[in-house]
């Protein structure tokens, strides 16, 4: 009996979904794969979901998520973070290494990977630290992490820049042995000592120490040259300036193996929000100017920037209920990322839904070397799907209603369009009717 129920629960007939290409189709999900596509499909015992007007995106993939576990379970756990991810339409997230202990050994990355499996809301692919304890002086055992059950391919000291040029060169070279990629948090440390916000007109007026664009751009330029020199793969985390986009465009034009991501908040919000001195707008790299937003959007549209990554960075309220300078850097993002991208890129005509599928699923999965994800919905493919209603009336974001343990969303009160209706992970619904199934 129980067996029968389970099989029925795992068979879904999704009617009249719109594919990213614009074509309408039914989708039959069975045994973790898309068993069949076409019109007027029928399946006895299948649960039916009417997807008329909904877009069927390949399950979203986040290259940059802070799940905080182990160590800071007061801010987020793998359970709450992956539920938040599923609600945002994600079927896989890359968990950043800056946990306590740091994910710099095979043991820690395997633990994170297993906890993700057990939570079941979405796949958790650990990112390994580049240097021991994120200390920036000695390489972590990158090979051991690559060979572990977690099969780590992306390595990052995110939150810290691998600023030592020799160490960065060695890391880039070393990961070639197992097709790894170094994801760099580009921040020249000396140029950003004590930095609080974008250096410009607003920082000058507010008397907050500036984080100049050049501190990001100088590292990106250096790293592109290093990646070219050693023939390795560089991924640039959370690109925030128009100048960075130009440098990456140039590096790509050379045929170098450079990829890049941009966050939803950098696509929509400017440094003028700091005028309130409310640290909900404090993030690293900082919110920049309208000119930068324009450059980032154009870069994402033309493919210079490969993907959107959330940099979901949950913090407990006491880390934000403070003076600006004392507050933690970071913003949550998983639950609003797709809506924010619709606002920034689709409503502006810069990307169509095929473009969104590419930038939020296909390309991040490719950069993360993540099998089974980032595959456009087609018969025989994995049943990792996000059903999204782009016509849902814009609703103000309410962080108190979020599944994330933390409330530090910069979109608080901002009306964003769209609604994630359902998310399927290998054929199992993790989200239905906009609500988590477990």
């Amino acid at each position: 009996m129980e067996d029968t129920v389970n099989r029925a629960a795992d068979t879904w007939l999704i009617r009249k979904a719109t594919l990213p290409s614009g074509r309408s189709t039914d989708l039959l999900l069975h045994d973790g794969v898309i068993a069949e596509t076409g019109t007027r499909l029928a399946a006895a015992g299948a649960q039916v979901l009417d997807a008329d007007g909904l877009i069927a995106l390949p399950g979203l993939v986040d290259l940059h998520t802070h799940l905080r576990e182990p160590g800071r379970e007061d801010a987020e756990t793998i359970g709450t973070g992956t539920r938040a991810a599923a609600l945002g339409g994600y079927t896989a997230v890359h968990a950043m290494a800056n946990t306590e202990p740091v994910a710099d050994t095979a043991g820690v990355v395997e633990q994170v990977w297993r906890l993700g499996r057990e939570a079941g809301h979405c796949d958790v692919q650990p990112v390994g630290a580049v240097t021991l304890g994120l200390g920036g002086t000695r390489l972590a055992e990158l090979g051991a992490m690559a060979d572990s059950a977690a099969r780590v391919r992306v390595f990052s000291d995110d939150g810290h820049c691998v600023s030592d040029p020799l160490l960065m060169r060695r890391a880039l070279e070393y990961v070639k042995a197992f097709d790894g990629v170094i994801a760099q948090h580009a921040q020249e440390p000396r140029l950003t000592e004590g930095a609080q916000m974008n250096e410009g007109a607003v920082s000058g007026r507010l008397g907050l120490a500036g984080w100049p664009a050049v501190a990001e751009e100088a590292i990106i330029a250096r790293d592109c040259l290093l990646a070219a020199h050693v023939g390795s793969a560089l991924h640039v985390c959370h690109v925030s300036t128009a100048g960075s986009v130009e440098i990456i465009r140039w590096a790509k034009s050379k045929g170098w193996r450079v990829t890049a991501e941009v966050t939803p908040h950098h696509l929509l919000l400017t440094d003028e929000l700091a005028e309130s001195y409310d640290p909900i707008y404090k993030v690293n790299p900082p919110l920049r100017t309208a000119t930068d937003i324009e450059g980032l959007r154009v870069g994402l549209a033309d493919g210079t920037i490969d993907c959107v990554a959330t940099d979901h960075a949950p913090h407990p309220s006491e880390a934000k209920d403070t003076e600006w300078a004392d507050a933690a850097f970071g913003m949550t993002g998983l639950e609003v990322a797709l809506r924010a991208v619709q606002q920034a890129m689709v409503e502006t005509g810069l990307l169509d839904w095929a473009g969104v599928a590419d930038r939020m699923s296909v390309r991040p999965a490719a950069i993360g070397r993540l099998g089974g994800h980032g595959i456009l919905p087609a018969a025989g493919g994995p049943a990792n799907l996000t059903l999204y209603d782009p016509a849902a009336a814009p609703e103000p974001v309410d962080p108190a209603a979020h599944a994330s343990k933390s409330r530090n969303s910069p979109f608080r009160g901002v009306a964003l369009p769209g609604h994630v209706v359902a998310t399927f992970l290998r054929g199992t619904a993790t989200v239905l009717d906009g609500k988590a199934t477990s």
Partner: protein
Amino acid sequence: MNRHLIAAADLSRDDALLILDTAEELARMSDRPIKKLPTLRGRTVVNLFFEDSTRTRISFEAAAKRLSADVINFSAKGSSVAKGESLKDTALTLEAMGADAVVIRHDASGAPHRLAGWIRGHVINAGDGMHEHPTQALLDAFTIRRRLGLQPGAGETGPAPASRRAASGSATGHSAASRGGGRSGAGGLDGVRVTIVGDVLHSRVARSNIALLNILGAEVTLVAPPTLLPIAVDGWSCEVSYDLDAVLPKSDVIMMLRVQRERMTAAYFPSVREYSRRYGLDAGRMAMLPEHAIVMHPGPMNRGVEIAAEVADSPRSTIVEQVANGVSVRMAVLYLLLGGAELTGEPR
């Protein structure tokens, strides 16, 4: 004006003039044998100081006491703050104790903004990080008005700056006059040429002064090594020069900022001696100023660095007057915010 005084930039011209004129009245009363006024009897003013600043704290304390307010001094050192209490919890504690106004000095820019969001009482910024120090700007403006004879009722007897004497029919003069009507024309600093010298980048005094001087119609020139100016200073409504000697003859007021020795280690300038040679005000440079010009410094001074002793002690120096005027101006601010008087202007 808001119910708080957080930034000089938030003041309208009418607000600023009301504060300055009220300070004039209060200053006259302080010449009486009994200085105390009953205005704020039964009201509680808390001095919440997260940075050591005996001068500013005493000035606010004297101002509140002359208005008969009860004053509580809360210093972060050795307090609950030292034990890790957050600003928010400290604020809620003060609120529960019935503080009608909190005077806050904090090393974090924006701390008074945050405080104003957490408590019902009035917030007065006594200096926040590198952001603002509005009562310093108000006392500086008050001092300039008095020394240059520009306060209402000063008539033609006081000395006027050269720019005003020479250009009484100039565009500046006309525009000031044509704004006319009520307060707007009188008592401002229209056309007064103020030069601010030194570490503008890190200075809350400079930010407040630039904002208020602009509001009052003065023409501001900044002089500093390029390293000590904000990167976007082009957008500020003032002139910028790297050459102090060129600016001196065209200044009615010269304001020297304190320069901290630790700036040298962060490579803002090569040495204290070089800074002093290029940007310090010594007797030779003072002689290049017009005869009526005054020399100001918010204190505490580094004698021999940004200002030579003989300049600091010269009759042109207003440094001691600034301290005295600080009490009058802070009395005016407390009187207007706590006394229930509505300042009329809209925040800018």
